[in-house]
């Protein structure tokens, strides 16, 4: 029994220590942002790596998500004689929830894992150490541009996700089921508010981009410098980032849409 309590206490302590180090890291990253912004080329390279290269998975997923929403929305709404509102349902679901959340989850899986593995491997192969010995701060040179790139990419990807998703819904509802295109768009237009829906959804994706980038880089930077350590860090990075995104989504939704 005592062992159990001791083990529990130790795990809690270790968890808190990890959290403390993560907070210290994010503060240092934020402090490094101004210096990193002076070298936009490094940020652009990373926006390409984590953002542009994630476009395919975002576009394809959002198209299918939008199409499924169109179908399910129609099946449900048609019973109430409200099939024309399917555009509203698709747009609100995407803009408020699915756009930011699914984008962040896909980002954590596609780009976050590669950030963790890249930074973890750079650490394991002493590249970060050698950079330090060359008087180049790895936090500023390696981590900060990647952090800024995540922060920029996730909101933009979420916008793409929502836009393509709406098109997917349109293809199914109008193209396949035969709902009137005018009703589809005009219902959507009257029901979706720029401030309450689009802006709030955008704010969510900004927060998710911040958190997904932060967790991915923290896990890589803290990875044990072995192949097993890097693989564990990559897995934990994706798991933690996904859970953080879902938890924060609830919190933000509760705060935003009361």
């Amino acid at each position, binding site marked *: 029994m005592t062992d159990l309590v001791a083990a529990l206490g130790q795990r809690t302590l270790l968890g808190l220590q990890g959290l403390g180090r993560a907070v210290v890291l994010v503060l240092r990253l934020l402090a490094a942002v101004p210096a990193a912004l002076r070298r936009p080329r490094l940020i652009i390279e990373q926006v390409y790596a984590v953002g542009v290269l994630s476009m395919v998975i975002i576009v394809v997923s959002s198209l299918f998500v939008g199409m499924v929403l169109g179908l399910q929305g129609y099946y449900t709404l048609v019973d109430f004689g409200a099939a024309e509102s399917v555009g509203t349902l698709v747009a609100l679901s995407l803009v408020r929830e699915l756009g930011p959340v699914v984008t962040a989850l896909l980002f954590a899986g596609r780009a976050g894992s590669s950030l963790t593995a890249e930074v973890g491997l750079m650490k394991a192969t002493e590249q970060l150490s050698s950079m330090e010995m*060359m008087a180049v701060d790895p936090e500023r040179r390696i981590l900060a541009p990647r952090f800024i790139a995540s922060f920029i990419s996730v909101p933009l990807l979420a916008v793409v996700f929502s836009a393509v998703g709406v098109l997917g819904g349109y293809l199914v509802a109008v193209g396949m089921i035969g709902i009137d295109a005018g009703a589809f768009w005009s219902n959507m237009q009257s029901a979706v508010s720029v401030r309450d829906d689009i802006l709030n959804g955008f704010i969510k994706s900004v927060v998710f981009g911040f958190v997904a980038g932060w967790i991915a880089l923290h896990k890589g930077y803290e990875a044990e410098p072995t192949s097993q350590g890097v693989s564990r860090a990559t897995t934990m990075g994706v798991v933690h980032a996904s859970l953080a995104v879902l938890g924060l989504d609830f919190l933000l939704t509760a705060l935003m849409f009361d």
Partner: protein
Amino acid sequence: MPADSSTTEPLVKARGLVFRRGDRAIFDGVDLDVSAGRVTAIMGPSGSGKTTLLRLIGGQLRPHAGSVRVEGQEVAALPRPGLYRLRRRMGMLFQSGALFTDLSVFDNVAFPIREHTGLPEPLVRDLVLLKLQAVGLRGARHLMPAELSGGMARRVALARAIALDPVLVMYDEPFTGQDPITMGVLVTLIRRLNDLLGLTSIVVSHDVHETMAIADYVYVLADGRVIAEGTPDELRDSSSEWVRQFLDARPDGPVPFHYPAPALEADLFDGGEGR
């Protein structure tokens, strides 16, 4: 006493150095001097803290007690900008080479120059080619690190380490795992670069013959202390059991062959518990 009998201050000076990992003392009161312009070797068996010593000199680790001074500056007391200024005057060759895998040979060597100098690109190119020429790899500048052999990777890393014309170059196990030809190349390079560029070199190694061949002064570390020091000739003549075991590669001696364990009989016949 350390090698240099002149009155000039040594470039690196460690006094009463103590460093622990957990409960284990890696260094327990180490004193050593590295004189300017010399090749100083730090030898000792694996796990004797040789790499740790380089990290202490480079300020990547802080000692628990004692001091490390480089050019008269206490490394552990330097604030980050000061430490970074000092590091620009140091080059370090990591055991793995630690080349940036996403950059070509050329860009690897150009990296510190581009980061620190803001020189125009044609000048960077000339400097990089000269550094690569010094290690004999000017023709390999377009290759990626994955395309290099271990020895070539180390030579590229060496070119990168001297890119900013440092005062001090530290070599972490430069000969480990190299074939005889590469080893010969590296041995010659370290000595030649030291003399031609007026560097000061610290070579951490357990390759006795290669290291003794180029060192001006040697420290032997074991059990957290300096157990022998002197010029290579002095060490060769040493009668210390420890030095003899290390230099003559004897399997047993002050460093036991067996990892601490209960007596074999007890383990075999009285055991049965655990594995």
